[in-house]
């Protein structure tokens, strides 16, 4: 029973393409996040959603568009992919915003843009 699951695990695509990454959590958490981990392993927040509502867009290009159909799902759509988008993208969830609870992360999606 995976708590936070992401698909696909690997994604290789050409520049200019549009792709989506899906995330689902079965923990009953209210808040979900997308993080990007670059080649230097630095983990940087991109978006957070609370009860399907976008809370923050952390200066991410508007080619990235998150969508939350319900509070258990947070998908990430990326338009016009660029080489610099190559990274590992992690979905995470927590019981609520700013509650101090630990985050539960998915296993990541490794995106390679060629």
């Amino acid at each position, binding site marked *: 029973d995976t708590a*936070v699951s992401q698909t696909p695990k690997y994604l290789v695509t050409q520049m200019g393409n549009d792709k989506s990454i899906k995330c689902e959590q079965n923990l009953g958490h209210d808040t979900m*996040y997308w993080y990007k981990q670059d080649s*230097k*392993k*630095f*983990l*940087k*927040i991109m978006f*957070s959603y609370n009860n399907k509502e976008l*809370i*923050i867009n*952390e200066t991410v290009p508007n080619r990235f568009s998150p969508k939350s159909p319900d509070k258990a799902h947070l998908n990430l759509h990326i338009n016009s992919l660029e080489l610099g988008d190559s990274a590992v993208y*992690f979905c*995470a969830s927590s019981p609520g*915003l*700013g*509650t*101090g*609870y*630990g*985050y*539960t*992360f*998915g*296993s*990541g999606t490794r995106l390679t843009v060629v």
Partner: protein
Amino acid sequence: SQKIEQNSEALNIQEGKTATLTCNYTNYSPAYLQWYRQDPGRGPVFLLLIRENEKEKRKERLKVTFDTTLKQSLFHITASQPADSATYLCALPRGWNYGGSQGNLIFGKGTKLSVKP
């Protein structure tokens, strides 16, 4: 700006010794601090949370301290084992006066711990 520094990129120790990892932060007074473990090819796993009014917290062989005067947290693993080898990340909630949503965790770059048998 708000900064988190884990000043060792890598730490190598012998099995059985205590590993001590450091997390420093500047320009900020967080209400709590968290530590995570990340194995290669995996997402970070939450280990411990310590609040600003707590000096120390323990969980099995793990111990975390939080010194709000020094703006520093220390993460200790006692009786270390090769299975403890991983990257350890320190994380703080973003402060309200740095923009973005208060509470979103920001992470340090991590310290890669290697425990040799």
